[in-house]
């Protein structure tokens, strides 16, 4: 079973001193109940303390353990069709990921759809100027759920090499961005790495990167990357 959020060390210490785990489980709420409650149940499950109907109830209520949802997320992640959104230099490197050498079709990004209504993923490749930002937001709004955004390159993630009156310093000022790919321009392999990270996020195994290395789990600010935007 997949525990999506591991506990903060301080919370674990507090929890171990309180009451019996069975009592806690009995007072649990529904699927969108207290995060703390689910945390404790997950800990109990791992220790083997849950059994019987409680175990089944817990398994059903966990967000991503249903086989159907896992299957759907697997299918979605392996068929992320990008929308053509080439703005500047990064667009040239984005064009080269569909070519034979860095083939992105083998990862599911088969076709670049021109119409945003037919695309799952928006790869923002290039600098976002203040004139273009409302246009991008409009295109993003026209995309159908579920949709994800990759900010490709330094200019789409922050201001990039530039820091002046004409640019929006990073697309995440007006769009929710899932993956930032650094580089100026990022190599095609970097972008494919970013797409693979997004795939893992969609499947429910978000790659926490440096957070696992520095044991900083639980410090993420954003919402659940496996749940599509707006849902």
């Amino acid at each position, binding site marked *: 079973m997949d525990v999506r959020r591991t506990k903060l060390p301080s919370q674990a210490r507090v929890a171990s001193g309180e009451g019996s785990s069975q009592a806690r489980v009995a007072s649990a709420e529904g699927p969108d109940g207290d995060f703390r409650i689910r945390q404790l149940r997950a800990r109990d499950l791992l220790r083997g303390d849950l059994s019987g109907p409680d175990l089944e109830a817990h398994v059903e209520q966990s967000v991503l353990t249903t086989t159907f949802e896992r299957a759907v997320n697997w299918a979605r992640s392996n068929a992320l069709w990008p929308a053509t959104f080439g703005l500047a230099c990064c667009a040239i490197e984005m064009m080269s990921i569909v070519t034979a050498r860095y083939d992105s079709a083998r990862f599911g990004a088969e076709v670049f759809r021109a119409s945003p209504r037919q695309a799952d993923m928006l790869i923002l490749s290039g600098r976002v100027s*203040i*004139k273009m930002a409302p246009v991008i937001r409009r295109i993003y709004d026209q995309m159908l759920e579920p949709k994800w955004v990759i900010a490709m390159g330094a200019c789409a993630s922050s*201001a990039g090499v530039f*820091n*002046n*009156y004409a640019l929006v*310093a990073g697309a995440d*000022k007006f769009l929710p961005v899932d993956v930032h790919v650094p580089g100026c321009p990022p190599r095609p392999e970097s972008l494919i790495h970013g797409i693979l990270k997004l795939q893992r996020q969609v499947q429910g195994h978000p790659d926490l990167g440096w957070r696992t290395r520095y044991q900083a789990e639980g410090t993420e600010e954003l919402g659940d990357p496996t749940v599509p935007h707006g849902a």
Partner: protein
Amino acid sequence: MPDATGLELIAHDLREQVLGAVTDTQHHRGIATLIVDPERILEALAWLRDTPNQAYSFLASLHGNDYLPAAPRFGVHYELLNMDRVERLHVKALLDEPADGGLPELDSCVELFPTASFQERETYDMFGIRFRGHPDLRRILMPEEYEGWPQRRDFPMGGEPVLFTHNETQTPRWYE
């Protein structure tokens, strides 16, 4: 490029033809520059283009410059090219900012050189220099409702402050 003497000859001829046109000449690093009175710029350009032994018929570039704090403040530069002799001539018109706070004005040379259409719009957009007689003078690179003339020297660079650990929490909205 016309060399220094060639430049002086051109200036001399132009001064004869169009009175009061040429205010100065410069020859620096092999580039010949004629500084022309802004009121006479159209006549000067027309003379340079149409006179048979001048024939600077190709306007390679038209751009502006802000010489703040020097005065006159604005310069509009015309980069002319004679394709037969492969000679380039740089013509400059220096404009002052009008005292009443309006925009400096210059005659548009779109009739003489159609290529000036977009380039004058860009100079207007970036410096606020109004070209009289341009058929469609509006902003070209910035959004239409933008206020301010970005490439003027007193226009701030803009952008976001760089966050360091010592000033991070003092910067407004640093958590975004």
